[in-house]
């Protein structure tokens, strides 16, 4: 049986504890890296991470991208949202297709 973790600043994630996820509040970048590495070694299948942190940890997250588990998913927090989650999806499309064909129309309108 696997577990689900949430990493981020305390304000953004404390609610997730109520719905049964394990929350790991971190304050800064180094702490986040440490926490993430620890969680990957443990029995966590999904790790949600706030976008604000995910933006700093791109290199760290890429290391786990080819493994099936854990799935590391950026989610928006209370503050410091960078749109990293959507950018990620966009990156997949670019990687697979060669150019972005899904988000095209939106960028033109913006």
């Amino acid at each position, binding site marked *: *049986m*696997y*577990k*689900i973790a949430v990493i981020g600043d305390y*304000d*953004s994630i*404390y*609610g*997730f*504890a*109520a*719905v*049964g*996820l394990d929350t790991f509040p971190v304050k800064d970048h180094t702490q986040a890296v440490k926490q993430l590495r620890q969680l990957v070694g443990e029995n966590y*299948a*999904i790790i*949600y991470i706030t976008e604000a942190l995910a933006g700093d940890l791109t290199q760290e997250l890429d290391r786990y*991208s*080819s493994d*099936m*588990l854990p*799935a590391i*998913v950026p*989610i*928006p*927090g*209370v503050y410091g949202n960078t749109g990293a*989650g*959507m950018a*990620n*999806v966009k990156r*997949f*499309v670019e*990687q*697979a*297709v060669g150019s972005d064909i*899904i*988000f095209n129309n939106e960028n033109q309108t913006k």
Partner: protein
Amino acid sequence: MASTQINPTRMELTRLKRKLVTARRGHKLLKDKRDELMRQFLDMVRENKALRERVEKNIADANKNFVLASASASVEVLKVALMAPKQQVSLSCSKRNVMSVEIPVFETKMKTSDANDIYSYGFAFTSSDLDDAVKSLADILPDMLLLAQKEKSCQMMAQEIEKTRRRVNALEHVMIPDLEYKIKYISMKLDENERSTQVRLMKVKDMMLKRAHNYHY
């Protein structure tokens, strides 16, 4: 392309021809794999995008609710209220094979079966804002799990597509033309050898006739 030394022998020729057949078949198979992966990937990534939009919006709403809740209660009260969660999610993960890419399929089991039995606190000392906040978060949890599954699948499929495309291109633009060139080179060389043998034989025949009968053409 002819940088490497080619042995113009019949054995080498058959070997290369066999290799070319294999390369062509591999190329066709990989191309099919790439096309199918791409088709499934595009479907999946569209779903992924829609799901992410919904989840992000809902999380933002839930966060608003939590901010409201924390505005009307002190930090200590909130911490105490959420200290011992009732709900516990356990996850089982199986694999699904999509064109040789193994993507995860998550299945969740909640500890409490009743969806309304998630409040880990008495209702006396907390505001209804907190109830709303917890409820809104509980509602989006299934979507969040699905998002994790979809997003991981997209990620892995994107990587596989990139790999497959490289292989297809390498076969199409390097391996196959190279083999074709080598085969052509060897068959030309062999033909040339054959012709020179023929000429030599004719010449020898001439010389022999000449010696035997003092015969001239």
